[in-house]
């Protein structure tokens, strides 16, 4: 019993211990089954007693504990040793993960009533192992770092200052060996110049735990002076305080810094003094850091007003709103630099055009430190550039419009350059006309030699170069160009280059050609007869279209084509008998030229004609062109068999000639038609004239005969009447009384009158019939003599007669004599009864006629009847008053009219009369 109670007490004692112990504890029996486990065990491994106690250890946690190493311990090691400590086991537990455990195991015999129990104490050293590992890794790392560091590392004992460790870099740097350094005090190193100071510093270090020298001068073992950065830290290594010194060789850096400082100051000076460029430094945020004289000048701000300000204030408002400054900075930062042109604002608000380069500044590590901004005022330059650009564009435009290009030939290097228009004129790319030989290649074969000569002459004699030539274009057509230029010499007088212009003169040449063709044709029309005209015009069109064969014809009234001429070869070949052949419209058919005429358009082909009639010339190529006038065809041009194909130019030339020829041809043909008509009319007229003349002559003869017979036959009886009645009066007077005598006298006087009448009538008719022979007549003399002829002595005595000088007349003298006789007789007659008898004769020349006037102071006449004055047998006075037959004035009128003049009279009853007649001057004379 006691034993049992002791046992129980032991067991309770053991259990309490087991449960109290902090580390997991587990008791196994000899079969390795769990007898008991401590609370810590259950907590640690997160298992329950129910699932643990009684289990085989290896079965714990679903056989989690089936660990080979555990088996080794429990079954192999422990039986031999009975105790084993610090058995490390690592295992990945399902419940708690991977753990590193340290086991203490005890085998105890005959305790607690059991044969054998095993005690397992478990310590979780997972963390510790981790730390140790880390430490180990750190240790390794540290070691590695220590060994390979490019800085010197010195480990000192903090208390004594003794060098504990030195890394290889420092060894190399200082030139001392490991052995030399280790164990020494740090200030004993000969390299630390100022020992005392160093000791003090060491004290400082001990106190503060940290010391730093930025620039410590050292001397290596071989006397080299170096500068180092010296940093020291104090820390604990285990229980010991150690000082770690980091030593960086900053000799190079210092030198670089020195150089940099030097260049910086140089640079600064340069920047400071530069006034044409604003050079400012910006920080990364765009604030102004530095400001040079140029910036002051260009932007207007003093340095102190602007440093620290945002550089965006130099931008115009819109740019700021659009975030331009920031954009530019970021581009500079991204790409290293940015070059822009833009408007910037001065201090006074005025704008200027700036050329800006912003360069990003980076340090050795590539970190952005800031920016340098270089600004230049290019307002003037910009304006000049723009003006130049405008000028350039204007020039180019002008050149384009004027088809004028300029060129330059570097004779030394044989290089040709030119303006856009120049290349366009030559229809070439710059490469295609870069050398002189290429230029010559493009010329017309006939022009090549001449142009080369001209160029040589210009070069040799420094003469002005002015020549025309043709260049071949890509479509194989030719362009006429006039080139002008001059040669330039170097200092020695050797020609080195030529420069000049090229002008497209195709239009001008074409116009000149047109003019010369037109002139030629114009001359033809002027000078040459109709027959030859066709031939000559044909020659012109053959020449200008370089055709050996051709036709020029016209359409007659029937619409048929008449060809007055063909080229001679065709004559011979076509065996045409007549000189001119006619194609009646019905026979035209459908070949080219009838189509051209019918359809009123040009028909041309550069292919051989399919159907050539026998004996005719084969047509290789031709142009058939109708000559249109006012929309209707009046003629035809045809040219054929030019050596090369007919071009649009050829057609154009023919059209031009046709247009020019058309009106003249039409006029010619109209004229010819009119001429023919006139000829016809003339022929008719001739015959009619002949007829009429014959008639007239007959009539004249009849009239002559009539007047002859009148004069003879009428007079004879009159004579008889008069004579015999006279005889009666004389011889039978005694048988007649007064009345009888009177009656007989009446008979006599009437017969006389009748005789006068007959005379006058005869006169009148003769005056009309007789041939007029016009000569110069002195009218003054004539009038005067007539007066003296007509006037009786009595009249001469009593009448006052005056005659002014009269202009000579060109007239028939005998007829004019009658005129004067009649007029003067009338004047005398009608003044005979007046108290005042005055006759005045005047004359004047007026408007190409001579006007003669005779004024009398006679009885005058009633002007109401003046229109009857000049009628035959018209009398305005009674026979008793004034004798006369009334034919006199009719005769005057007839004669004057025959001379192409007029008669008229003025008068008043009782107031005299003035008679005028006019005669045209010789030049104006015409005969009725």
């Amino acid at each position, binding site marked *: 019993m006691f034993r049992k109670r002791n046992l129980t007490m032991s067991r309770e004692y053991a259990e309490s211990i087991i449960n109290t112990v902090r580390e997991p504890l587990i008791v196994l029996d000899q079969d390795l089954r769990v007898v008991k486990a401590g609370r810590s065990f259950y907590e640690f491994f997160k298992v329950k007693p129910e699932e643990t106690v009684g289990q085989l250890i290896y079965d714990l946690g679903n056989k989690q504990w089936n660990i080979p190493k555990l088996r080794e311990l429990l079954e192999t090691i422990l039986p031999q040793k009975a105790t084993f400590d610090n058995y490390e086991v690592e295992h990945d537990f399902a419940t708690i993960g991977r753990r590193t455990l340290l086991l203490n195991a005890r085998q105890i015999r005959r305790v607690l009533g059991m044969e054998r129990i095993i005690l397992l104490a478990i310590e979780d050293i997972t963390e510790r192992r981790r730390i140790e590992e880390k430490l180990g890794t750190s240790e390794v790392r540290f070691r590695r770092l220590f060994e390979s560091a490019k800085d010197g590392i010195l480990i000192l004992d903090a208390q004594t200052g003794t060098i504990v460790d030195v890394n290889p870099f420092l060894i190399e740097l200082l030139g001392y060996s490991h052995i030399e350094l280790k164990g020494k005090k740090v200030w004993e190193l000969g390299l630390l110049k100022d020992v005392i100071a160093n000791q003090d510093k060491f004290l400082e270090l001990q106190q503060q735990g940290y010391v730093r020298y930025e620039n410590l001068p050292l001397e290596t073992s071989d006397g080299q002076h170096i500068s180092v950065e010296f940093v020291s830290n104090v820390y604990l290594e285990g229980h010991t305080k150690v000082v770690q010194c980091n030593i960086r060789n900053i000799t190079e850096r210092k030198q670089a810094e020195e150089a940099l400082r030097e260049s910086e100051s140089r640079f600064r000076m340069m920047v400071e003094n530069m006034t044409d460029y604003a050079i400012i430094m910006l920080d990364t945020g765009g604030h102004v850091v530095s400001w040079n004289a140029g910036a002051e000048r260009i932007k207007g701000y003093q340095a102190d007003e602007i440093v620290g300000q945002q550089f965006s204030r130099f931008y115009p408002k819109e740019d700021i709103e659009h975030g331009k400054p920031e954009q530019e900075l970021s581009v500079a930062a991204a790409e290293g630099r940015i070059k822009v042109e833009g408007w910037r604002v001065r201090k006074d608000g005025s704008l200027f055009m700036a050329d800006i380069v912003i360069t990003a500044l980076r340090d050795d590590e590539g970190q952005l430190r800031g920016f340098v901004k270089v600004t230049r005022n290019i307002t003037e330059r910009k304006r000049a550039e723009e003006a130049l650009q405008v000028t350039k564009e204007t020039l180019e435009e002008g050149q384009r419009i004027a088809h004028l290009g300029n060129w330059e030939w570097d004779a030394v290097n044989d290089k040709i350059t030119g303006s856009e228009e120049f290349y366009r004129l030559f229809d070439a790319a710059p490469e295609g006309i870069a050398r002189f030989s290429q230029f010559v290649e493009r010329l017309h074969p006939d022009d090549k030699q001449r142009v080369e000569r001209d160029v040589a002459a210009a070069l040799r004699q420094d003469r002005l170069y002015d020549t025309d030539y043709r260049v071949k274009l890509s479509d194989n057509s030719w362009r006429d160009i006039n080139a002008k230029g001059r040669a330039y010499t170097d200092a020695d007088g050797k020609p080195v280059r030529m420069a000049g212009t090229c002008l497209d003169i195709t239009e001008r040449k074409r116009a000149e050609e047109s003019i010369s063709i037109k002139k030629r044709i114009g001359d033809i029309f002027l000078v040459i007869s109709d027959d030859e005209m066709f031939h000559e015009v044909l020659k012109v069109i053959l020449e200008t279209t370089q055709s050996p064969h051709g036709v020029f014809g016209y359409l007659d009234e029937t619409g048929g084509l008449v060809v007055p001429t063909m080229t001679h070869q065709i004559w011979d070949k076509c065996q045409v008998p007549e000189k001119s052949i006619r194609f009646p419209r019905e026979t035209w058919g459908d070949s080219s030229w009838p189509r051209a005429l019918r359809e009123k358009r040009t028909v041309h082909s550069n292919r051989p004609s399919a159907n050539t009639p026998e004996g005719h010339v084969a047509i290789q190529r031709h142009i058939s062109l109708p000559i249109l006038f006012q929309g209707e065809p009046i003629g035809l041009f045809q040219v054929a068999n030019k050596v090369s194909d007919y071009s649009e130019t050829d057609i154009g030339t023919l059209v031009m000639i046709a247009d020019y020829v058309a009106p003249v041809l039409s006029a010619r043909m109209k004229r010819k038609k009119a001429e023919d008509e006139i000829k016809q009319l003339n022929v008719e007229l001739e015959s009619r004239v002949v007829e009429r003349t014959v008639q007239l002559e007959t009539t004249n003869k009849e009239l002559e005969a009539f007047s*002859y017979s009148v*004069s*003879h*036959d009428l*007079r*004879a*009886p*009159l*004579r*008889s009447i*008069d*004579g*015999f*009645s*006279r*005889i009666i009066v004389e011889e039978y007077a005694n048988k007649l009384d007064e009345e009888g005598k009177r009656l007989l006298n009446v008979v*006599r006087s009437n*017969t*006389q009158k*009748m*005789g006068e009448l007959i*005379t006058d009538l*005869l006169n009148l008719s003769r005056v009309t019939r007789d041939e007029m022979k016009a000569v110069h007549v002195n009218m003054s003399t004539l009038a005067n003599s007539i007066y003296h002829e007509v006037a009786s002595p009595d009249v001469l005595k009593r009448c006052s007669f005056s005659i002014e000088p009269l202009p000579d007349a060109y007239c028939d003298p005998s007829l004019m004599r009658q005129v004067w006789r009649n007029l003067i007789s009338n004047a005398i007659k009608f003044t005979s009864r007046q108290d005042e008898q005055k006759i005045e004769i005047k004359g004047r020349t007026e408007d190409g006629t001579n006007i003669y006037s005779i004024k009398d102071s006679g009885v005058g006449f009633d002007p109401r009847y003046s229109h009857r004055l000049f009628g035959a047998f018209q009398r305005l006075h009674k026979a008793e008053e004034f004798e006369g037959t009334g034919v006199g004035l009719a005769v005057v009128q007839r004669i004057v009219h025959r001379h192409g003049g007029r008669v008229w009279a003025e008068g008043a009853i009782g107031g005299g009369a003035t008679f005028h007649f006019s005669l045209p001057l010789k030049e104006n004379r015409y005969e009725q």
Partner: protein
Amino acid sequence: MNNEVEILLVEDNPNDAELALRALKKHNLANNVAVVTDGEEAIDFVFARSKYEHRKTESGPRIILLDLKLPKVDGLEVLRAIKGDPRTKIIPVIVLTSSREEKDIVESYKLGVNSYILKPVDFDKFVDAVKEIGYYWLLLNQSPIK
């Protein structure tokens, strides 16, 4: 001699002939006047042919008064005949006519007429003209014919 014809009057108009004779008579010039009434007779007379073949040409006439408008042979023909013959061309011929035609005048003178007088309608003037002629040609003018 009394047979001598002094004046040959060639006049177809009997009235005119009568008047002419009266005029001549009035002025005592009508002693030996022969009258023929047409051209043929005139020529016969002057050249002593047919009817007048017995006439002696030596006996005149001393002057011929010739009218132009004559039947049968025209006056100008007579003139031509007379002036064309050497035997008769010396006889003064005085054309006494009413024709004023210039061509008659010119032709007459071409043919050799000695004088060309127009017959006035007025009888008095006619008589005067005849008288003048007579006086002139018979008395004043020296005739080649004796």
